[in-house]
């Protein structure tokens, strides 16, 4: 039964994730944390973080992680397969339209895409709020060291156009050093 649950859950993730990996975050969370309780909130955001540092799409990474945890290696393969299955149908259908006859389908798709853009912005914002909550709040209050590092990182990203990978590595390392110094000083 667990395999069926994984299958239907990740098929929905594959089918309704639009607008790229960050927009998929709330959808994946809805399925694997809120509905099925396969991961804790902390584990979920750990995966988002790991996915950010490794090659591969967010949804595929989450599928593999959840699949392994819930049903071992067969679970990982099944969850990944379920995630790409809707894409295989939809995108090959679109490909055959594109390469054989350019019909009105492309026009409809553009309008759908245009329509869901605000929803995509909302989903990415929701992912941002969730991550800020897990990254900056400790025991129901804001941690000022974490907040300071976060604001600095946002500033550097916006003003200096730093590469996200550099931001990740530096903030991981900097936080570890600062935290160690603080702990040592106390």
């Amino acid at each position: 039964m667990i395999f069926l649950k994984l299958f239907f859950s990740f098929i929905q993730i594959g089918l309704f994730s639009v607008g790229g990996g960050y927009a998929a975050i709330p959808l994946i969370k809805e399925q694997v944390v809120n509905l099925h309780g396969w991961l804790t909130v902390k584990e979920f955001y750990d995966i988002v973080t790991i996915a950010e540092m490794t090659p591969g799409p967010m949804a595929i990474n989450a599928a593999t992680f959840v699949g392994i945890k819930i049903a071992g290696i067969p679970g990982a393969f099944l969850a990944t397969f379920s995630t790409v299955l809707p894409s295989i149908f939809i995108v090959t259908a679109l490909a055959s339209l594109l390469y054989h006859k350019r019909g009105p389908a492309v026009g409809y798709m553009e309008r759908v895409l245009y329509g869901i853009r605000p929803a995509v912005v909302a989903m990415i914002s929701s992912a941002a709020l969730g991550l800020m909550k897990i990254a900056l709040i400790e025991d129901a209050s804001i941690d000022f060291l974490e907040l300071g590092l976060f604001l600095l990182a946002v500033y550097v990203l916006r003003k200096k156009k730093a590469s996200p990978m550099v931001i990740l590595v530096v903030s991981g390392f900097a936080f570890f050093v600062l935290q160690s110094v603080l702990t040592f000083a106390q």
Partner: protein
Amino acid sequence: MKKKEMSLFQIFLSALKLSSITFGGGFVMIGMMERKFVQETEILRSEEMMDIAAIAQSAPGAVAVNAWILLGYRLAGLPGSLIATLGAVLPPLFIIGVLSLIYQQFITSPVVATIMKGLQIGVAAIIVDLVLTLIQAIAGDSRPIDFLLAFAALIALLQFNVPIYMIILIYAALGLWRKK
């Protein structure tokens, strides 16, 4: 245009290789494809790559996987799509598979947990940066209705726990109905 053929095995290998080395999501993958298939090998024309990019982004699912399905189809039809998909998902499957075993072992270590926390602060900053960019883009389009729609979706999501598929379907229907 020179007509060049690629065997299924070559398609599989290219997907496997690019998928192992491409960090940073679907848009980076499209950039890597452009370099390999348009600039280096001249198998595709630049406009073809742009079509692939547009459809990969608009269809549901992971952008990088969608791009490989399209590219595989363009190179070798449906078998090409399937083999490209396999090549694209195997590296993340393998990498995350190994990392998840390591994760279970090491997440209890305070050192690992602290570094993880720092990385999460970085990820939060990256996504907030993206949100700010998106808000600027909507403001630049000067369509206040898009702001309202985005805000309404956010409230629906956070306050009323409206399922995401429902939000997507409603907004897609709105898109078909609204005039551009």
